[in-house]
C-alpha cells in the first residue's frame, strides 16, 4: 500500500488496526490483504466478488475491518459482502469506501452488504464514505445494506458520507424479530452539484422490537438530497425516525417519510426538519468571539459530529 492508499484508508477508517482484528482490504477490485482471527473468519465468495464474514457464536468482542479503496480513475467495482453473526456474539465491524479519482471518467463502488444476526448478538457497524481527486470524473457510491435481526439481537449502524462523493443512493433495509433493536445514525454532507439519496425500509415484525433512525445532513452549494423512509410496524413495537437537514446556498432537500402501523400496538414517530442554520445559533457563537464563517463551520461540524 502506498501513501495515497494509506491516506484514504485513514480517512474512511481511522480506527483501522491489523492487531487482534479480522480484516480484508480491497483495492481497485482486488482483495490485497486478508486476515482472520479466532472469533472472526473472512472467506472470499466463490461465485461472485465479495466476502463472507463469520463471527463465532458467543464471541466476546470480534473486530472486523473491511475497507475498500479505489485509486484508479474510471474504475467500477461491485461487491457482495455477507456477515453471519453467531448467537450471543459481540462484534464491531468497520466498513467504508474511499475513492480517489484524478481523471475524466467516472469511478464507482457498490457495496451490497447483508447482515444475518442471530439471537442475542450485538453488532456495531461503522461505515464511512469519502471521495477526492482533481479530475472531473464522478465519484459514485451506491451502498445497499440489508439487516436481519433475530430475537433480542441488536445492530447499531453509524454511517457517514464525509465529502467529495458526486452521487450516492444509499439503501438500507431491516427486518426485526421479537425484542430486536436497530439504531441507525446517518450523517451526510453534500456540496458542489452532488446528489445524495437515502432510502430506509424497516419492518418491525416481532413484539417489543424497536428502531431508532436519525439522519442529519448538510446540503450546501448546488447539491440536492432526498430522504425517503418507510417504517412498518407489524407488532407491538416502537420506532422513531428523525430527519434533520441544514440547507445552505442554493442546495435543496426533500424529505419523504412514511410510517405504517399495521396493528394498534405499533407506536411510530417521524420527525423531519429542514432549514438554514438558525440565526440565533450564529449570534450565540459570535458573542463568544467567533466570526460568522467560523460560527457556521462550528455549527455544521457539531451537527455532523
Amino acid at each position, binding site marked *: 500500500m502506498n501513501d495515497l492508499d494509506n491516506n484514504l484508508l485513514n480517512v474512511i477508517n481511522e480506527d483501522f488496526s491489523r492487531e487482534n482484528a479480522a480484516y480484508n482490504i480491497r483495492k481497485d477490485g482486488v482483495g490485497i490483504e486478508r486476515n482472520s482471527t479466532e472469533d472472526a473468519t473472512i472467506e472470499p465468495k466463490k461465485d461472485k466478488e465479495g466476502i463472507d464474514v463469520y463471527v463465532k457464536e458467543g464471541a466476546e468482542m470480534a473486530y472486523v475491518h473491511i475497507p475498500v479503496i479505489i485509486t484508479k480513475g474510471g474504475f467500477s467495482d461491485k461487491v457482495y459482502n455477507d456477515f453471519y453473526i453467531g448467537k450471543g456474539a459481540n462484534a464491531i465491524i468497520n466498513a467504508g469506501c474511499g475513492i480517489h479519482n484524478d481523471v475524466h471518467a467516472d469511478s464507482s463502488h457498490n457495496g451490497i452488504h447483508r447482515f444475518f444476526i442471530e439471537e442475542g448478538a450485538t453488532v456495531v457497524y461503522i461505515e464511512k464514505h469519502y471521495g477526492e481527486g482533481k479530475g472531473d470524473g464522478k465519484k459514485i457510491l451506491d451502498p445497499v445494506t440489508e439487516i436481519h435481526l433475530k430475537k433480542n439481537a441488536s445492530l447499531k449502524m453509524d454511517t457517514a458520507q464525509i465529502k467529495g462523493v458526486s452521487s450516492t443512493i444509499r439503501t438500507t433495509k431491516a427486518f426485526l424479530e421479537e425484542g430486536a433493536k436497530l439504531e441507525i445514525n446517518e450523517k451526510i454532507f453534500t456540496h458542489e452539484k452532488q446528489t445524495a439519496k437515502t432510502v430506509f425500509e424497516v419492518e418491525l415484525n416481532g413484539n417489543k422490537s424497536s428502531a431508532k433512525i436519525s439522519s442529519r445532513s448538510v446540503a450546501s452549494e448546488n447539491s440536492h438530497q432526498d430522504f425517503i423512509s418507510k417504517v412498518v410496524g407489524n407488532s407491538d413495537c416502537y420506532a422513531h425516525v428523525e430527519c434533520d437537514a441544514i440547507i445552505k446556498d442554493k442546495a435543496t432537500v426533500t424529505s419523504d417519510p412514511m410510517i405504517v402501523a399495521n396493528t394498534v400496538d405499533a407506536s411510530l414517530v417521524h420527525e423531519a426538519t429542514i432549514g438554514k442554520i438558525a440565526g*440565533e*445559533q450564529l*449570534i450565540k457563537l459570535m*458573542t*463568544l*468571539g467567533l466570526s460568522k464563517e467560523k460560527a457556521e463551520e462550528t455549527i455544521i461540524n*457539531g*451537527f455532523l459530529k
Partner: protein
Amino acid sequence: MLEVKDISYVVDNKVVLDKVNLTIKPGLTVITGPNGAGKSTLSKVLMGIVKPTSGSIIYNGEDITNLSIDERAKKGFAFSFQTPVKFKGITVGDLITLSSFESESFISPYEILSDVGLCAKDYVNREIDSSLSGGELKRIEIASALVREAKVNIFDEPEAGIDLWSFDNLSDMFKKLKTKKDTISIIVSHQERIIDIASNIILIKQGKAQVVNSKKELSTIASKCNDCKGGC
C-alpha cells in the same frame, strides 16, 4: 467606561429606545423596568446584536457602534441570553471550551459548571438540546458567559428559569463580579434581590432611561404611571 450616547431604536414606526444617554462605570449596574420597556433591546444594542437607528456606543473612549458582535466579543464583551440557544451535536463541554478560548486565565468546564450549580461530569458530554431542562440550559448559558472572564458582562434576565434554591448562588456570583476591578457587569433584571446588590440602577420606561439613586426612589418612580391619571 461604557457610554451610551443618544441611542434610539425604532422598528415598525415604534420607538423602542428613545435617545438613551448613560455612562456605565465598573461595578454592577442593573437595568430594570416594565415588560416591553426596551431593557433587553438596550442590552442587545450594547453587544451589537441589535443595530441602533441612531446614536453611538463608546467603550473606553473608542466608538464601537459599528463593530460586529464578534468584534465586540474580542474587545472583552460577554453576553448571556434570556432564552438560551440550543444546538444539535454541540455538547456542553464544547460550548464551554469555545467560550473560554480567549479568556486570559484558563477555567476548566468542570470548574465553571460547578460554579453554576451543575455537576460537571453529568453534563460535559451532553448535547445542548431539548433533553436539558430550561433551568439547566439557563445555568449553562450563564456559565458560557462567565467563563470568558470578560471586561463587560451583560446578562439578560439571568434569573429567569432559575429555581429559588439556586438563586442564592446566582446572586453570590454577581456579588463576586461586582468586586472585580475594571469590570463592568450589566444585568437586566426585575428581581429585587439583584437590584439590592447593584452599584447602579437604571430604569427604562417607554424607551427612555433614567439613573435611579436608590431602591426606594425606584419604587416611587416605578409606581407612577404616565398613561393614566389615577395611578395604577
